[in-house]
């Protein structure tokens, strides 16, 4: 009897039990209103009297007739209690759920705003199901994109905004760092991302109080959160560093002066190469070649940082490094940085090492033609998923062009050095879905050669030649096709 009674109660009051109150900001072009919305069975009910009052439209609430009449000039909108039908100038509009009246509050499904009230105000109410906010009229709402990826010992959250923003970090609760965004409303592509690695569990966009912020759910292993802005504050890298990692991590990259970037950004709209990802080879425990002259991992990072600064100033492109500190990354994580950021060019930097102390050869590598063809053909048409190492095929011709231009510019810029183009099955290039090359410079085992590689003058010539090449590549048809 008791179970039956509980079941009956659940059946009868189930709807109300599932109701949950949530804050619901409505962004008008010059103001904002935060209302309490009821979510019942996935239908969002908003208190419409507060909203109508905010718009300044006159209305009449008739208790006896159980109707609410809204007027604007000669237009009239009438809603009735417990009815999904509303009348706009005598024309009937059907809402997906009936309008409720409880405790002197009129509650209407959110579609009432988009289908009904927008006709009265003349401004569109934009609502995307699954979100908890509405934009009214021509309010300026840049998109916000979030991506999280595990890069060896660190976890990187990449934020891309269509307009410049500023981030401020608050770590009142060490497990819930909050990134406050000091800009008006934003339109997040995803409300929440679940990452679940050793440092980051999830990131949630929250503007329930009308202020945009990101709430990070992190683990106890996070010792430090480092924010690095890029591209005139349109891109932010939020790096979560583990205990001990903060000590070894290099300082954030030094961005070129804002004026220089702003000047370079001007012709950016016509640019074919918008995002370049540079991959400093090796890092962390993986030192690469190491001799008395130094480690490959340090030299590649130095060159990559200099190349970034030069490219930003010359091309005005967004230039990202796969690593900006002494951390180890696997090959897939490196190409993933380029793929995730829709890079137009991926350049992996390496320093050579030969057992022959007299050798001083350099090479430009592109992915070997036909690598993986046999296995993909064996899969036939029934193959459901293509192996990720075939990603290079998408821009094979673009990679060739980039390598040819690099070869010409490097030969011109560094006389006496040869840069033959070689084709190799390279892990770091195989899954990069954009034109991608790997450059291996010199021989660290050759004392004279190693000394040259460390000279600032030589590095400048090398960087300038590469910048010239990337500039030329950005004007090629292959860059346009990318």
């Amino acid at each position, binding site marked *: 009897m008791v179970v039956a009674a509980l079941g009956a109660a659940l059946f009868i009051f189930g709807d109300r039990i599932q109701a949950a109150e949530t804050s619901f900001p409505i962004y008008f072009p010059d103001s904002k209103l935060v209302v309490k919305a009821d979510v019942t069975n996935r239908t969002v009910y908003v208190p419409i009297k507060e909203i109508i009052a905010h718009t300044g439209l006159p209305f009449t609430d008739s208790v006896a007739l159980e109707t609410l009449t809204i007027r604007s000039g000669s237009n009239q909108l009438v809603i009735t209690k417990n009815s999904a039908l509303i009348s706009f100038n005598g024309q009937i509009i059907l809402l997906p759920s009936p309008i409720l009246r409880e405790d002197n509050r009129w509650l209407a499904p959110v579609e009432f705003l988009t289908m009904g009230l927008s006709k009265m105000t003349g401004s569109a109410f934009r609502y995307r199901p699954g979100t908890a906010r509405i934009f009214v009229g021509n309010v300026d709402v840049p998109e916000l994109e979030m991506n999280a990826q595990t890069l060896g010992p660190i976890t990187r959250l990449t934020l891309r905004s269509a307009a410049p923003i500023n981030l401020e970090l608050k770590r009142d609760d060490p497990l819930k760092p909050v990134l406050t965004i000091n800009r008006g409303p934003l339109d997040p592509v995803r409300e929440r991302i679940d990452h679940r690695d050793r440092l980051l569990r999830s990131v949630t966009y929250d503007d329930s109080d009308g202020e945009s912020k990101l709430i990070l759910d992190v683990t106890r292993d996070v010792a430090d959160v480092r924010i690095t802005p890029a591209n005139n504050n349109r891109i932010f890298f939020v790096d979560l560093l583990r205990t001990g990692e903060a000590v070894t991590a290099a300082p954030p990259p030094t961005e070129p002066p804002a004026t220089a970037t702003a000047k370079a950004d001007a012709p950016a709209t016509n640019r074919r190469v918008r995002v370049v990802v540079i991959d400093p080879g*090796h890092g962390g425990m*993986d030192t*690469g*070649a190491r001799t008395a002259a130094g480690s490959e991992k340090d030299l590649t990072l130095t060159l990559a940082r200099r190349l970034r600064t030069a490219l930003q100033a010359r091309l005005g492109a967004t230039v990202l490094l796969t690593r900006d500190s002494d951390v180890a990354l696997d*090959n897939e994580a490196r190409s993933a940085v380029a793929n995730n950021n829709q890079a137009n060019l991926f350049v992996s930097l*390496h320093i*050579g*090492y*030969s*057992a*022959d102390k*007299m*050798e001083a*050869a350099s*090479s430009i*590598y592109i992915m*070997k033609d036909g*690598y*993986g063809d*046999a*296995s993909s053909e064996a899969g036939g048409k029934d193959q459901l998923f293509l192996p990720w*190492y075939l990603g290079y095929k998408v821009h094979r011709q673009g990679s060739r062009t980039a390598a040819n231009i690099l070869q010409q510019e490097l030969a011109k810029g560094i006389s006496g050095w*040869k840069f*033959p183009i*070689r*084709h*190799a*099955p*390279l*892990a*770091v290039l*195989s899954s990069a879905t954009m034109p991608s090359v*790997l450059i*291996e410079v010199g021989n660290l085992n050759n004392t004279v050669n190693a000394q040259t590689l460390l000279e600032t003058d030589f590095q400048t010539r090398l960087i300038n030649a590469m910048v010239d090449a990337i500039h030329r590549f950005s004007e090629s048809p292959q860059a346009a096709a990318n």
Partner: protein
Amino acid sequence: MPRHIKIGLIVLGIGFSVALGFFVDVIGRVQSVIKDESETEENPFQPPAQPLYDPTDPPVSVKLFFPSASGDPLLAVEDETIFKSSELTNRALQILQKVQDGPRKGGMFPALPKETKVQEIFISEQGTAIVNFSNTLATNHPGGVESELATIYSIVNSVTYNLPEIKEVKILIGGVEKETLAGHCLLLLPLQMDLSVTNATPRVENTASVR
């Protein structure tokens, strides 16, 4: 003694004998397994019981590829001689052992890092040679893209150039598949001959294959 006790004792005796026999057998098996494991650990590379060629097999010249000192082209060629064994696997092993021994001429470097051994080879019907090297192929490798590329194509070209039945070579290290040799070059898939890294001309059909 009553008859039923006698029968009971006989049954017990038989049961005890069977149990004892089973116990001895199990002990023997366990000891033989332990012995096998210790032998495997002491000597992971079991040399083939049969010689790689017959004394009557005719000699045949092969071209071996080794990293060139100049670096351009990446690989230089050395002429060597093996014996034309009737077994394809044995011919492949002879070639790989020559690669393992390193070049005799100057102007070339060893293709494999120190202490690296060819442990076994298996050739599929489709012409894929799966070659297993000792762990030192990766652990003793100096690294670097050019150096890894030279090692890989010294192996692949030396086998496929001389043995047309072998279309491609898949390299295993320490008996397992590795993503890369030493961080750069992919070993996920079998690799075909690539003469673009050498000055060698495409092979003619006078190779070490048996027709």
